[in-house]
């Protein structure tokens, strides 16, 4: 279980990641909604809290056997419970990532990065956005790059990408109606994407502690 000596991890690791995400979006819900209130419609926090609560509930009830199945299940849950723009986008991200992972029992960080790359590509295709449009992609794209290196690098890159949305003018989603007035605000979706990778890094760190403790 956990990250083993060869650096691979199984379904339980991903379940713990998603639990950590659920905790993070719940904790940060008000902040996310505040950001969405400035350039959107003030529901991003509520949307993700609802979605990830459903994700963890389902994972607890019907625990999938493989990493790919965990992410595919989570993606389906997000699609089925979130609505709005972020539901299909995050849902597609996880579902596609899960599908790309296939049905192996364990995966490496590099494999996860690879699969997330295809997930992010699917998000870009579905939403028609590209980096610089002030969306979640501004955090997701660099994060996946970073993940090729390390969990910590992914986290840092996501965080940086989210912050980098501040001076941008939104071209997609609800914030785009603001035109110039969207400048100066951090994108809520990019911010929640950063939470995803922060949670991933923390899960990995806890895992390392665990593994050491166990070894």
């Amino acid at each position: 279980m956990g990250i083993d000596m060869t650096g691979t991890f199984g379904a339980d690791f991903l379940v713990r990641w998603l639990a950590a995400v659920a905790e993070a979006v719940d904790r940060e819900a008000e902040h996310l909604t505040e950001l969405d209130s400035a350039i959107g419609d003030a529901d991003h926090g509520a949307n993700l809290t609802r979605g990830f609560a459903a994700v963890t509930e389902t994972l607890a009830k019907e625990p999938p056997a493989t990493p790919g199945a965990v992410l595919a299940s989570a993606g389906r849950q997000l699609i089925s419970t979130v609505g709005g723009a972020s539901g299909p986008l995050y849902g597609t991200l996880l579902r596609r990532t899960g599908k790309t992972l296939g049905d192996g029992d364990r995966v490496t960080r590099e494999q996860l990065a690879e699969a997330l790359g295809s997930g992010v590509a699917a998000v870009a295709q579905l939403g028609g956005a590209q980096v610089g449009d002030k969306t979640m992609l501004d955090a997701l794209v660099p994060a996946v790059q970073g993940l090729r290196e390390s969990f910590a690098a992914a986290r840092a890159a996501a965080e940086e990408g989210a912050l980098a949305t501040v001076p941008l003018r939104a071209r997609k989603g609800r914030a785009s109606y603001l035109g110039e007035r969207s400048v100066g605000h951090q994108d809520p979706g990019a911010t929640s994407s950063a939470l995803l990778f922060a949670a991933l890094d923390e899960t990995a760190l806890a895992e390392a502690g665990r593994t050491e403790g166990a070894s």
Partner: protein
Amino acid sequence: MRMLINVPETVVADALRGMAAAHPELTVDVERRVVVRRDAPVAGKVALVSGGGSGHEPLHGGFVGPGMLAAACPGEVFTSPVPDQMVRAAAAVDSGAGVLFVVKNYTGDVLNFEMAAELAEDEGIQVAKVLVDDDVAVKDSLYTAGRRGTGATLFVEKIAGAAAEEGAPLERVEAIARRVNERSRSFGVALSACTTPAKGSPTFDLPAGELELGVGIHGEPGRERRPMMTSREIADFAVDAVLEDLRPSGPVIALVNGMGATPLLELYGFNAEVQRVLGERKVPVARTLVGNYVTSLDMAGCSVTLCAVDEELLRLWDAPVQTAALRWGR
């Protein structure tokens, strides 16, 4: 907070229970959030399905019934519904003649309906989609998510719904829906912001004595903010904004719509000004509808939607409709 609710979390479910009790002619699945006309599926007829975030009532649930929508999917307040609702609705109303999804152009609605269409097609349902994007306040659609869908939704649902009721095949119903959208434009004005139950405070700041010209139906910002204007001035501005884009060569149907908290007395007075401008601009008005139809919770304000009709569209507009919020004919 001056809301008539229990807790924000149950607002949509509570409303659906209340709707079920008031409308025995509808089948309301409170759990799964689908409102279906009782006699669906209607053999041989195309079924219209729409939906979107709640908070715009009577849109869409109030437009379910003979001559208009076969089903509606209400999302959370101001949040698009999820594909599961749409697929379930499509399955409930499809007679085999196919389903038309009427989608307001907001990223969330577009993406969720897109996924739903794929899933429904997987289940063997023939699905077509029409995107409603009539709000001329959004100018440079190249750099945005595009024009928002607002008042024209009512025109699309009514007129395409009548075509479906007459037995037109899916491609024809879809083409009519598209034509209605292409010939419709809207412009909205907010005199106050609205308050979502979840947030509990106004979604944007609009100081008393100012108004937001070109507001969206979720309180999205418009073209500009100005000191308070008279009904006459607002009508000039709104109608001209619509006409500039629409340039109708013949008669129009006018929807003079309330955002929710503007009294009907004021709306009728505003309609007098709208009719005056249209007269001055030599635009003949074939039909007029005044009321709260596409609302934004407790926002004060109004919008004007014009649809440049041809003979067929006008005939379909006049065709009988039997829904909670729109009824005539037969």
